[in-house]
């Protein structure tokens, strides 16, 4: 008798009762919806495309950020903590990601939102910037701000130490590019997305400022020096530590191809890092002039 009872139990379960059917249909319909919302919610909050502002202290990063947020730069002081603001691309600038959309597509009528993240430039606080690059969340590009007036040789006659500002700037940029190169070369299952770097020669309103092409060549020369002396320098105490933040790893890493001869930003393309240099000014008597910014953001969004 046992099998009949179990059979009937099974049969009743399998029978197409209206209740079972409705529950089944509801489940089938709601699970994808549910999953969609869960995943959608959790991702949108974190993965708004992000652009990162880095550069030595006093180069004008926070000023730039406030300029974009309010239409005019705020007074700023040395930053101690990172700051992220949400911006939206003006309707007139097309985003690269919507190039296949037709002009009549209603979605192009909406603002493309993105985050702009400012980091402190002080030597002790650069780990904020590096951490963001090591664990990027939808990082679309890096803007490296340079104080073009500060690195010009004519103004800084700091005597024995040479052009300190240029050296510091080049060193920061070197470390940044090296990190990007390492990131591109780490063997992961899926290649990390390319991160373009925009070097912004800021403060061009000052008459002592170097124009963008000269900033570029000055930085390239100085990075060559940094690379050479890094190559000859002592090993650091973290040898054998195998994480990307720790620096050396087992063997020394070179920036660019083999580390021989002169460094040019073109060498970074091997690691899929596009470096471009523009000049602008955030503050100035004739108002801010940051041409090329929106176009660059649009290209990389």
């Amino acid at each position: 008798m046992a099998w009949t009872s179990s059979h009937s139990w099974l049969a009743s379960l399998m029978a197409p009762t209206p209740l079972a059917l409705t529950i089944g249909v509801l489940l089938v319909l709601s699970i994808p919806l549910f999953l969609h919302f869960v995943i959608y919610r959790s991702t949108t909050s974190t993965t708004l495309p992000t652009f990162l502002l880095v550069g030595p202290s006093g180069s004008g990063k926070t000023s730039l950020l406030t300029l974009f947020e309010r239409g005019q730069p705020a007074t700023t002081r040395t930053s101690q903590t990172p700051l992220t603001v949400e911006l939206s691309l003006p309707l007139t600038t097309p985003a690269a990601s919507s190039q296949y959309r037709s002009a009549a597509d209603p979605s192009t009528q909406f603002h493309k939102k993105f985050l702009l993240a400012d980091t402190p430039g002080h030597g002790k606080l650069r780990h904020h910037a590096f951490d963001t690059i090591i664990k990027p969340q939808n990082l679309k590009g890096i803007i490296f701000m340079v104080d073009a007036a500060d690195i010009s040789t004519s103004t800084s006659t700091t005597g024995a130490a040479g052009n300190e500002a240029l050296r510091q700037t080049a060193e920061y940029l070197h470390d940044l590019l090296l990190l990007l190169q390492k990131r591109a070369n780490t063997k992961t299952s899926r290649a990390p997305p390319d991160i373009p770097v925009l070097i912004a020669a800021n403060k061009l309103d000052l008459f002592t400022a170097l124009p963008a092409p000269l900033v570029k060549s000055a930085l390239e020369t100085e990075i060559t020096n940094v690379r050479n002396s890094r190559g000859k320098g002592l090993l650091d105490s973290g040898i054998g530590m195998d994480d990307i933040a720790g620096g050396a790893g087992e063997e020394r890493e070179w920036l660019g191809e083999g580390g021989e001869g002169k460094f040019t930003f073109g060498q970074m393309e091997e690691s899929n890092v596009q470096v471009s240099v523009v000049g602008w000014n955030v503050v100035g008597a004739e108002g801010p002039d940051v041409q090329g910014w929106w176009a660059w953001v649009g290209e990389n969004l």
Partner: protein
Amino acid sequence: MLDGFEILTTSGVVLWSKSYAPVSSSIINGFIKDVFIEEKVLPGASVADDASASQNPTYKKEQYTLKWASVKDLGLIFVAVYQSLLHLTWVDKLLDNIRIIFVDLYRDQLKKPHTSVVECDFDGYFDQQVKELEGAADKNPQRAPQVTVNDLTPPSSSDNGIEGLPPPLPGLAAVSQTGQLKKPHNNGDSTDITPVSTPDTSRPTTPASHILGGKAGPKSRRAKKAMNAPANASSGDERKGKPKKDTGKKMRRWDADGMADDDDGTVLDYSIQSPDEDGMHSPEINAGIDGIDMQSAGTRTGKGQYVLKDLDSEVHSILEGANEKKSQSASSSSGVVGSSLGVISGLFRNVIGGKVLTKEDLAKPMRAMEEHLLKKNVAREAAVRLCEGVERELIGVKTGSFESVETTIRTAMESSLRKILTPTTSLDILRSITAVTSPSNLNPLSPSPRPYVISIVGVNGVGKSTNLSKLAFFLLQNNFSLLIAACDTFRSGAVEQLRVHARNLKELSARESLAKIDLYEKGYGKDAANIAKDAVSYASSNNYDVVLIDTAGRRHNDTRLMSNLEKFANFANPDKILMVGEALVGSDSVAQARSFNSSFGARRGLDGFIISKCDTVGDMVGSLVSMVHATGIPVVFLGVGQHYGDLRTLNVGWAVEMLMK
């Protein structure tokens, strides 16, 4: 009188400022660097939640004195700048009160993520406080003014500002919703009661002129903004039109009322510009601001009279409220039921995170952390200070989700160790040497080449000569020609020891055909400073790249020998003075580092440490931290063995990992 007052965020944006006299921005930047980033001015021993300004150390730069207060969870810093010649007793109180008022008024805006904009119309509140506190200080110069409820209540019945208001009340109530009404009231008042805040008010002024004088700055800024407005319109949003129209309507009604008042010009200007200002922001922000204004206006109307009263009473009610809250929280924590409930939810929160940390929560884990650091050979003084710093940073902070108190402390300690050990500027010694020995010939102003001078100091037996020869070996390999100057004319055998090293290195360089290396010696008993000076001039006439000066070891508490160092630094004028310290040394390291750092006179200090014998201590690398912490001077090299090649630079990540293991 104050020179300036600023409210800024830790992310570097000035939210509100008032300047009475131009103060160079380098003053406040220097203050931020020295106090918060490089921690050169160590905060006082007291650990309190957002300590009152009087407990924060005063910072002096050039002719200025800076006093400050902070709100950690909102990342705010309040700074007052004044001439050091003045003795302003009321500044602490001003900072504390302004902090309370500002946070109370704008807390919601400050908490908003992804924006740096805080719409604040704070001038009136600030002027009121300055006037009040300064006035009180003038009356009783002996004691600092205490803000008590009694002397705060304003004689509102005799207040001209209120009597002078136009009668139609319904219109006024509507206006008050925009939150802008306070402005003209305040200005009207401050002219009645002799205001001391602005320079031009020593004589009685008409309200209009006072307002115009005070408002000149913002007005011109707004004018500029108005010019920019078309450019921004493109980035605007369709929806923005709506709130704009609303405010516009209200403001217009006020205009009509304001005509009766004599300060209509300012009001008009204000009302025209404010919608524009709102229009600058994205719709969310816009909506948020409106919401806040409505809300606060609502509560104020709820209190009935408060709307019509002036700013004074609003400010005092805020301050009173803060006081009440403080006393309330003090009494509630002593209640039995409250505390046991608190313990349970605290335990729960400890597991799932989101707990707001108090001093009590931190006490035990901080003790454990301190023990841990001591075990790693960190000097007690440094360990205590470090823990205090972390505690100060964490009190009032919410732990992350699924983060226990311990992990939060750990992360905070890691980042504070990293901050301490990371040098402010790069320590690439090769590049520094190249810059001096072969300055770029592109620049006509650059100085002519000269030898780079490094001198090594330290207590007896820490390995000065050994590390000097390691450094020499490293520089030789980079093809710098070296002159080693034997300036230890005190301990017998010192010169011979260097001679041996020099001979070894010479052989080595001959074998690998590297640069020249020589020893400059003048025997014993002579004055070290003179020998060093001679060595440097000998090196520059014979084209050496680097001069390495060995000095006599000296106990840091031997005043006679230590005092020689100043003369030595003046004579030899080294580019770098490096102190060798032992990794083994315990609590003594702090005192050693301090006294060596201060022994070269007022204008000169150490440039870096070489920590020797690091291979003998395993992961107990605490003396690194002790020495850097005591002086703020970076570690340039680590000695890790007996061979010439056993010299390393410091990897901060490695050191932190060792310390936290």
